[in-house]
């Protein structure tokens, strides 16, 4: 008995998911959280499935998180990084993937510097494709784990005010957050230097707040984006020092707001640039719970794309 897969073949972004599909992932993740708390952190849901983690960009958190998620579901996994692989010999993306597929794999998790690369791949191979971050486009599992973390904290997302702060233009995390939060009824604002906020971002249904103090005053939660060093060298902002002065999320700014805010960050953090250490390590921070939720969300996505239904605890059993 096969039924229509709940999420389709691939997960390339949250833009094309419905609110129901996103809720299904979050519910499934909720159930998977418990697996990681067991002494023996393993269920047989994806036993016999072969998954390739194809990482064309450096990643610690996301790659490790996917790998734990896969292993805790009992899948067989292989990691391929661009350095030391045939990619560094000039092989094209589609050739790399087709060769891997010729080894009879079931899923590819891809991280790639080009926007659209996950969708490109998904349209050309039969395996399920999961986007682990494509250029400046989307990072859907990060968006989902942010949703799960906010839901844990606030109980619901409807009406919640979330401000996404920093380099919105170059951020795949920002786009996945915007789509996911809007679909689940949250209000979203973006805040950052105008040189790092797309001119037409409001068309995605978000408010633009130019000043960080106003964003803090407005928001129930902040999602603070990583500011990459190359934004300074390529002339989008004058200096990291000034960025911290004008847009940094600091304890003084949070205290001035006189309310309980939740602060998220997708990592890796530049302490003292977009976020100060006493905020990152402080009582408002949910940065480590985000990481914990990342494993559960990725387990849910892997499981649902593999065609699993809500009764995972009773599948693939016999042990």
């Amino acid at each position, binding site marked *: 008995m096969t039924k229509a897969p709940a999420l389709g073949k691939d997960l390339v972004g949250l*833009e094309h998911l419905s609110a129901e599909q996103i809720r299904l992932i979050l519910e499934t993740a909720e159930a998977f959280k418990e697996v990681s708390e067991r002494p023996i952190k393993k269920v047989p849901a994806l036993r016999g499935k072969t998954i390739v983690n194809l990482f064309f960009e450096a990643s610690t958190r996301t790659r490790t998180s996917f790998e734990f998620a896969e292993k805790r579901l009992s899948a067989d996994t292989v990691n391929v990084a661009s350095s030391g692989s045939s990619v560094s010999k000039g092989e*094209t*993306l*589609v050739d790399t993937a087709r060769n891997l597929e010729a080894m009879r794999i079931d899923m590819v998790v891809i991280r*790639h510097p*080009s*926007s*659209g*690369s996950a*969708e*490109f791949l998904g349209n050309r191979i039969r395996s399920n494709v999961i986007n682990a971050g*494509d*250029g*400046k*486009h*989307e990072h859907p599992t990060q968006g989902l784990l942010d949703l799960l973390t906010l839901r844990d904290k606030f109980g619901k997302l409807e009406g919640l005010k979330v401000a996404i702060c920093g380099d919105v233009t170059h951020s*795949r995390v920002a*786009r996945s957050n915007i789509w996911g939060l809007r679909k689940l009824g949250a209000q979203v604002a973006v805040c950052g230097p105008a040189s790092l906020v*797309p*001119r*037409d*971002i409001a*068309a*995605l249904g978000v408010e633009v707040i130019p000043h960080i103090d106003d964003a803090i005053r407005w928001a129930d939660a902040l999602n603070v984006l990583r500011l990459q060093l190359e934004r300074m060298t390529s002339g989008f902002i004058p200096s990291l020092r000034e960025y911290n002065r004008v847009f940094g999320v600091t304890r003084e700014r949070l205290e001035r707001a006189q309310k309980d805010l939740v602060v998220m960050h997708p990592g890796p953090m530049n302490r003292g640039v977009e976020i100060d250490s006493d905020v990152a390590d402080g009582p408002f921070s949910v940065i480590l719970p985000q990481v914990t939720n990342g494993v559960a969300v990725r387990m849910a996505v892997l499981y649902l794309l593999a065609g699993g239904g809500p009764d995972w605890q009773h599948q693939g059993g016999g042990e």
Partner: protein
Amino acid sequence: MTRPILIKGGRVIDPSRRSDGIADVYLAEGRVASVGHGIVGEDGCQVIDATGKVVAPGLIDLHVHLREPGFEDLETVATGAMAAAAGGFTAVCAMPNTDPPQDNQGTIGFVISQAQKAGKARVYPVGTISLGQKGEKLSEFGELMSAGAVAVSDDGKPIMNSHLMRTALEYAKTFGLPIADHCEEITLAHAGAMHEGIVATRLGLKGIPAAAEEIHVARDIILSELTGGQIHLCHMSTRGSVALIRRAKDMGLNVSAEVTPHHLTLTHHACEGYNTNAKMNPPLREEADVEALQQALKDGTIDVIATDHAPHHYDAKEREFDEAPNGILGLETAFGLAVSQLVRPGLLSLSDLLYRMSTRPAQLFKLPGGSLATNAPADVVILDPDVEWTVDPRAFFSKSRNTPFGGRTVRGRAEVTIVRGRVVHDRAGA
């Protein structure tokens, strides 16, 4: 010696003489011998029945890339000239970004000799403005012209150095050579992959703002005013550029402009799904830009339609969007798209369209053709402006297949193309 050709009973449209009516056209010795009623050709002449068809001066494209020498896996002069003939073009101007570039007499002469061997559409090479298209030193315009270049351009690469552009405009006046410029302020375009707008924002692709083109258009217009040189602005894409050109023409400056069929047809939404066949430079813009470009063509602000025919290999387009090369094919879809987008909705008459695709291009680059006057070259196209057909890239004569129009149904097609009094394309007999 080719046989004379008598084209009987067609609707003869000659924009150069503003004539439009049923007539016969008689071609002999590579020239238009006569246009009139009841013409009787000499014994043994080839008779073509054009009843229900349109007979017009052959289409002329001021902007194509034929890729030879250097990139013969994408296109050759011969395949490009055949694709041109199949699209109703009797002459095309080949841009100089070949390898080696058309910055010397030898390469210009080679392209001309390849075109003569092919014997399809005429091919007029465009020389480079700067040696090696490096934007540093002027090419030898006089030498290029004597070898057969009809204009100069560094197309694909804008001339960023304003001093070089100024001296090019001044120096070209000696020879009456038009300067064709690819307008893009590259420090502002900054390696963008598509139009800067809501689609780029959603797709996470770096955008090229309309301002990158407009700043360069404004500079070229100002330099044209300073020097009195003839500037031809390639593939205009924004409403802001249209406004700048309109003002320049009101001032009486020696400025002309072209627009491609795709910029008259598609918007940045064609890039959805990371469709690399919609990736080009300048990029596809917004609905308001398309409307402004159509209007500009109607009122003459933009002079001509040029295809920017840019063959690319399948593999090169079959990859990540930001890594894929810019450009699409144009020769075999241009007339059908133009009729469908401009004539059928009533924006242009067929005669107006033929003026912008034949007579006006010939005038701008001082080329033979664009007219059916007695003694004009026997470069003639027989068109069916009503026939409905579906674009099938596999049927192209071009070596490449990169078009976003595959599967699109259009109206209007070239049936017979005649160059120098010889049939070089006959769809029925092909």
